[in-house]
């Protein structure tokens, strides 16, 4: 959209993306909704979203059906588990990239480690953790600690 069709300026696209990364929900899905709305209103938002999801949905169901046929095969299962575990590793790598600005912010590191301990190790619900963490983060940010 930015390079080929020139529908939107790079800076503008970055701004929309920043909003959608911050908003809850799937980033690309939200980008499609915000841009679709901007150009064509509600109809644009719905069409953009469906267009983005339709083909990948067919792919993913196809792959899942294929796997359902082979999931009793231990070798296939080992490969798929390996992919899943690597996918978990990709999350950790992504988080490390996101965490770069926290390098010299001990309060930020403490908050991140605290969230990890409570959620991943303590298995506490996100619905309980998010409000508390957001409040703590908000106070820290207002005092210039983040």
């Amino acid at each position, binding site marked *: 959209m930015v390079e080929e069709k020139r529908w939107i300026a790079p800076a503008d696209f970055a701004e929309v993306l920043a909003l959608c*990364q911050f908003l809850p929900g799937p980033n690309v899905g939200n980008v499609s909704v915000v841009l679709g709305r901007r150009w064509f209103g509600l109809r644009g938002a719905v069409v953009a979203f469906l267009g983005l999801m339709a083909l990948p949905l067919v792919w993913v169901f196809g792959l899942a059906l294929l796997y359902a046929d082979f999931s009793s095969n231990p070798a296939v*299962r080992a490969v798929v588990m390996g992919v899943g575990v690597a996918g978990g590793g990709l999350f950790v790598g992504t988080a490390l990239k996101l965490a770069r600005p926290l390098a010299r912010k001990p309060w930020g590191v403490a908050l*991140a480690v605290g969230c990890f301990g409570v959620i991943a190790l303590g298995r506490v619900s996100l619905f309980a953790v998010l409000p508390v963490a957001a409040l703590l983060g908000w106070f820290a940010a207002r005092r210039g600690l983040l």
Partner: protein
Amino acid sequence: MLTLQIALYFALLSLVSVGGIPSVMPEMQRLVVDVQGWMSAAEFTQLFAIAQAAPGPNVLVTALIGWKVAGLAGGMVALAAFCAPAAALAYSIGGFWDRMRDAPWRKDFQRALVPITVGFIVSGGYVLATPQGPDWPSALIAVASAAALYATRLNPLWILSGGGVLGAALF
């Protein structure tokens, strides 16, 4: 009934998914595996693997989970329930957020969310990578792929493929 329950769960998850799908994976797994017992932790990781390997946005994992629990209709409902509330919020808040570009509270809020998102996403990775509790093969694969993503410009699909090869050798 199951479908309704899925719709409710995923709609709620939608509203706390700051940072997208990775942030809510721990809670999704907790609900689906620990609370409801709809599938094992290993099956959850396998569905996630399929969604990662397929082309397309990673939200599609919600469709696979819904499908596993309540068939094709369940899959469609799960995807819609996860996307709609957040999409409605994006739709309605887009203009307001633009106007608040320079407001101090918006900057504080964004700064506060960085460490929280980081903690949530690492939790998601941990939960997905240790379906049977932490063990050496999983730790090796997860750490290697995290390092590869962080330190190289390798396409993530290659890293996932590497995980598949290591999985075949180690599991």
